[in-house]
């Protein structure tokens, strides 16, 4: 009997507020160490936290986006532990009464099925600083710029049964938080970080002992780390061993993982309500205002793409998967006037090219308008799809808009039938043996043998012959 995999995720989503969760310091990206840390962030004696309303608003918006209950009186608690980059000796977070209660997220699987992943809750909390272990001659440097950055931690139920589902969920969550504008979604900056809880069992058995692999910061690492951990657990159990409840660290560069600490070493965090902060109250009016301001959610967008652009569910799901991709696709579709072509190009040529160069769609060298123009030229027969790829490459290389490239390189399809007819006549005249052979063949063979003449014609026109027109002409003339 095979193993059943059970996966639950905890995702830290960094909110894109202007200032920190409990202080007026600006959120830091790339600032000099400790220049974005105020008295509060440094945990100076006598300082006090004041909650950032915008962070509360964004957390509640997330709750509404996943159909969750919003806690009307959520409570901040202190999670006590010592660490040098935790300035107060406790993290201010939520436990018993988190702002976002149970909700759900629907994901689309590759086999076309849908699955609902239940969200246990999501809570607001502050991030810690960073410990820097290099360059300090055996000492550790502390950078508190990140300390106090607002996060929501989203905790799922153990509803995913393989790495692919976990990734599909993670991508959907990314799509949701970027669509509603609460997170910049830049994985390379740690805007989203995943902890994965994995256990395995035989079907029908109770849940197995789980391990937690922490701080995965890309979809790819998450997928690979889950697969690695599943393999490890299967090996251990099939060798008669036992899974130890522990926290593990995955190294993406070496594709290895190691145990960080076992359950026995776990801290007793001595949570209790933070006496410096009042409960966060959210009223009906607040919720109504949030609902009214709710941007289009990925699933609504997906439905709209299916309706408005007649896309398949799978295409619509992929294209609605991130706010940047959605916007790009709609830009291409509108400029090009053909949604199906737009979808194919965005998911095909463009995605492949972006992937190869590890670029985000928002950094695409070919703009949505340019790709739209290319599609328009393809659609009106100015260029063939083969030429289109050539134009796309030139556009990618920064040689200008598709129209300008087509003009400059003389790539316009030969649609003047007189000119093409003359070329075809010449080819027939100069290749008598092949013509003879063609004419003596049956229909099935003719279909293959016409390729020779098409090739000759394309060569003579440098690929600019309209393929349909050329085929038609050849069939007529060869008989």
């Amino acid at each position, binding site marked *: 009997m095979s193993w059943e995999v059970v996966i639950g995720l905890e995702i830290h989503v960094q909110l894109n507020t202007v200032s920190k969760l409990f202080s007026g310091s600006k959120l830091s990206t790339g600032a000099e160490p400790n220049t974005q840390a105020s008295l509060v962030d440094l*945990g100076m*004696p*006598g300082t*006090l936290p004041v909650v950032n309303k915008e962070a509360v608003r964004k957390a509640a918006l997330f709750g509404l986006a996943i159909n969750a209950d919003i806690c009307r009186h959520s409570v901040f608690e202190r999670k006590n532990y*010592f660490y040098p980059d935790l300035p*107060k*000796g406790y993290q201010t977070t939520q436990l018993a009464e988190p702002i976002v209660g149970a909700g759900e997220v629907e994901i689309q699987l590759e086999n076309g099925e849908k699955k609902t992943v239940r969200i246990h809750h999501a809570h607001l909390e502050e991030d810690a600083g960073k410990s820097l272990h290099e360059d300090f001659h055996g000492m550790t440097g502390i950078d508190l710029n990140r300390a106090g950055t607002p996060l929501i931690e989203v905790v799922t139920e153990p509803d995913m049964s393989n790495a692919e589902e976990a990734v599909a969920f993670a991508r959907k969550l990314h799509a949701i938080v970027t669509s509603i504008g609460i997170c910049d979604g830049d994985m390379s900056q740690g805007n989203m970080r995943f902890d994965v809880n994995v256990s395995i069992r035989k079907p029908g058995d109770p849940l197995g002992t789980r391990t937690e692999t922490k701080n995965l910061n890309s979809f790819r690492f998450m997928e690979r780390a889950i697969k690695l951990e599943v393999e490890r657990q299967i090996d251990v159990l099939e060798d008669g061993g036992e899974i130890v409840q522990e926290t593990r660290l995955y190294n993406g560069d070496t594709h290895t993982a190691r145990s960080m600490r076992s359950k026995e070493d776990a801290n007793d965090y001595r949570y209790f309500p933070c006496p410096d902060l009042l409960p966060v109250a959210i009223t009906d009016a607040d919720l109504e205002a949030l609902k009214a301001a709710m941007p289009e959610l990925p699933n609504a967008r997906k439905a709209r793409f299916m309706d408005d652009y007649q896309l398949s569910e799978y295409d619509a799901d992929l294209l609605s998967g991130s706010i940047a991709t959605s916007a790009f696709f709609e830009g291409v579709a509108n400029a090009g006037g053909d949604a199906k072509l737009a979808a194919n190009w965005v998911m095909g040529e463009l995605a492949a090219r972006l992937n190869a160069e590890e670029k985000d769609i928002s950094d695409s060298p070919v703009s949505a308008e340019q790709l739209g123009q290319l599609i328009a030229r393809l659609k009106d027969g100015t260029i063939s799809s083969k030429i289109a790829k050539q134009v796309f490459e030139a556009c990618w290389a920064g040689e200008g808009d598709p129209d300008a490239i087509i003009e400059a390189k003389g790539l316009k399809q030969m649609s003047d039938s007189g000119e093409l007819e003359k070329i075809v006549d010449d080819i027939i005249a100069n290749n008598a043996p092949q013509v003879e052979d063609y004419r003596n063949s049956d229909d099935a063979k003719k279909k293959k043998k016409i390729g020779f003449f098409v090739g000759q014609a394309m060569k003579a026109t440098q690929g600019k012959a309209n393929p349909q027109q050329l085929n038609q002409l050849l069939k007529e003339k060869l008989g």
Partner: protein
Amino acid sequence: MSNAMHNKTLTELKAGLAAGDFSSRELTEHFLARIQQHDGELNSFITVTAEQALAQADAADQAIATGNTGLLTGLPIAHKDIFCTEGVRTSCGSKMLDSFIAPYTATVVEKMAAEGAVMLGKTNMDEFAMGSSNETSYYGPVKNPWDLERVPGGSSGGAAACLGARLAPGATGTDTGGSIRQPAALNNITGLKPTYGRVSRWGMIAFASSLDQAGPMAQSADDCALMLQAMAGHDHRDSTSLNEKVDDYLGALNNDIRGLTIGIPEEFFPDTLDGAIADNSRDAIRELEKLGAKVVSVSLPSVKLSVPAYYVIAPAEASSNLSRFDGVRFGHRCDDPKDLEDLYKRSRSEGFGDEVKRRILVGAYALSAGYYDAYYRRAQQVRRLIRDDFARAFEKVDVLMGPTAPETAFKLGAKKDDPVSMYMADVFTIGVNLAGLPALSMPTGFINGLPTGTQIIGNYFREGQILNVAHKYQQATDWHKQAPVFGGEQ
């Protein structure tokens, strides 16, 4: 020389400054000289900021000359060393912060300075405000000016002693379980703990955040009203500071108290109470009856649980609040730590005194997995019962009264090895902190030459009424005017 400047109240000194009887510089120099002369014996100050005080006094004299005065212009004030003062050591009575120069100023200090107050220095206190005798200070115990062999109470022991000895005319204190009121009673001065949230906690080093509250200490109720007028108010930097308008405390001082209903909680006069202590407070209440107040008996049945509840909640919060003192960013760091664990262990072991360590241990225990429900949660439930008791009482009465402390100042070292007996010193004051109510202690007579105090507890935000009652009492009596024979003068 009973008319000396140091025997005058802040209110009288303010009038003297306005009338040009003396300058703020003269006044400040006078108190600085007294501190210089007497504080060696008393140890009520940790840091004296003479130079800054004189600069502030000169600025105050300028302001007086140009008529540009605030509530406290030119008046010397001593701040408890729990309030951060930019550029000045802020030790909180601990070795941990012996070298800590605060990089910013507490709201209380800032607001009083904005009203023209002159800061004389920083007063001694129990370490991190944990204590009822001022014996836990890293800087040594403060002596009671009424008997140098006795404690001044705590934790605002330095503030109360310097006021009692007339080394300063006004001082700030903080009160988590009685730390303003108990030392006020033991030094024959007047001290008010305002409603929780009335005075900002920004810049006040936290002991137990849900209980800590700053307040004024001075010779008289009208002085406390003057100081509170400057201290109180909403502060956007403190989420627990309430956005309620500040009453006109000075304006309410002379309100008629005829018809006022005083509740006497039977629990404040238990059979075990020293009869002389009870008598002094009963006499004070009788005095107010003469002024037209009515007296009724009430019961606060849960208040007897306040000491155990407090000694779970306060240490629990403290154990977390004091985690930031880890030797990493500020405060004491041990020499040559060999690793992170060693840095933490030695910095904290060396930096904290015994009582602080005791409370951190108790608090961490009360919050730990498996004990939280039995201790912390239960203590919070008791806290609710206590609050409800007071709320029921205030449906029937305007103020509640009883003794501030169960005994007069005890001998230095008498309770050193008996923490529980020490904790009982706050048996009458702690309930008020758990409920978040305002309460004042005022001098109400002596036993064997040692001062006793009586507490007036009011409903939320009724500081004006409490001060009014105390002021009326002080106009009819002169207990608060008694000063110790100290340093060969009076």
